[in-house]
């Protein structure tokens, strides 16, 4: 198979209910859905064999965004929706992605402010509740 490496973006990251999602791609300089695998120690049994531990995977929707101080920005939206669980929809590249990611995540507030006379950024990390799913994006 020929090697492929797609660039991130232009893509989409939406939060909120289907039908009225809020698009934040224009503010994002970094966006990702990240797994972290929690490996439980294997259990030794009397026969000398081992039984695999119960591994789990935690997911987060994370990234970095340019702060804006208007009510249309993600800083305000995160504050207004803090600790609520909302659907998300992540498409890394509108032209190249064969599939997107969906799920539900818990919104937490993010940094507002920083250095004076600077376009400040905020990092965000929203825990995915349950497992994310993928869905096919029809070829255009």
């Amino acid at each position, binding site marked *: 198979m020929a090697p492929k490496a797609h660039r*991130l*973006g*232009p*893509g*989409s*990251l939406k939060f909120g209910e289907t039908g009225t999602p809020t*698009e*934040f*791609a*224009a*503010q*994002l*300089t970094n*966006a990702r859905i990240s797994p972290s695998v929690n490996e439980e120690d294997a259990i030794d049994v009397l026969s000398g064999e081992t039984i695999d531990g119960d591994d789990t995977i935690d997911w987060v929707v994370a990234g970095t965004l*340019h702060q804006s101080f208007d009510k249309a920005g993600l800083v305000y939206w995160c504050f207004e929706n803090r600790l609520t669980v909302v659907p998300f929809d992540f498409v890394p590249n509108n032209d190249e992605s064969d599939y997107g990611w969906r799920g539900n995540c818990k919104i937490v507030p993010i940094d507002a402010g920083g250095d004076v*006379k600077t*376009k400040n950024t905020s990092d965000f990390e929203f825990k995915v509740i349950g497992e994310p799913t993928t869905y096919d994006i029809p070829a255009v």
Partner: protein
Amino acid sequence: MSAVLDRAEDVVAEVTGNLVAAGIDDATVTLDLLKVPAALANGPAVVVQPPRLDYTGTMAGSVTDATWEVFIIAGPVADRLAAWRRIDAIIDALKDPMDVDSAEPATFAHPGMPDHPAYVLSFTETI
């Protein structure tokens, strides 16, 4: 007309408005460096230069940051302190409203005329 040139004309209008608001009404504000020699006969010249453009990637596409340089040129060449005073008044009138990042001393050289004291203001904005 391009978005950058449209914005350049807006910058000229903003500079002009800020100078008038500060009581400086003898300055010529222009995009055209070639108009400076004639303008200096009447007072200081303020020239808005084409900006440096930087493109920052976002998930939705690139964002354009424009770094503008604005030349402030003044005479009389025979009285450097008077020229400096005129330039200083213009810097004072622009630094806060235009969110200026820096002001660098410079010299304006043009064929057929003596070198003039100048400053280069710099500020960056997203356009």
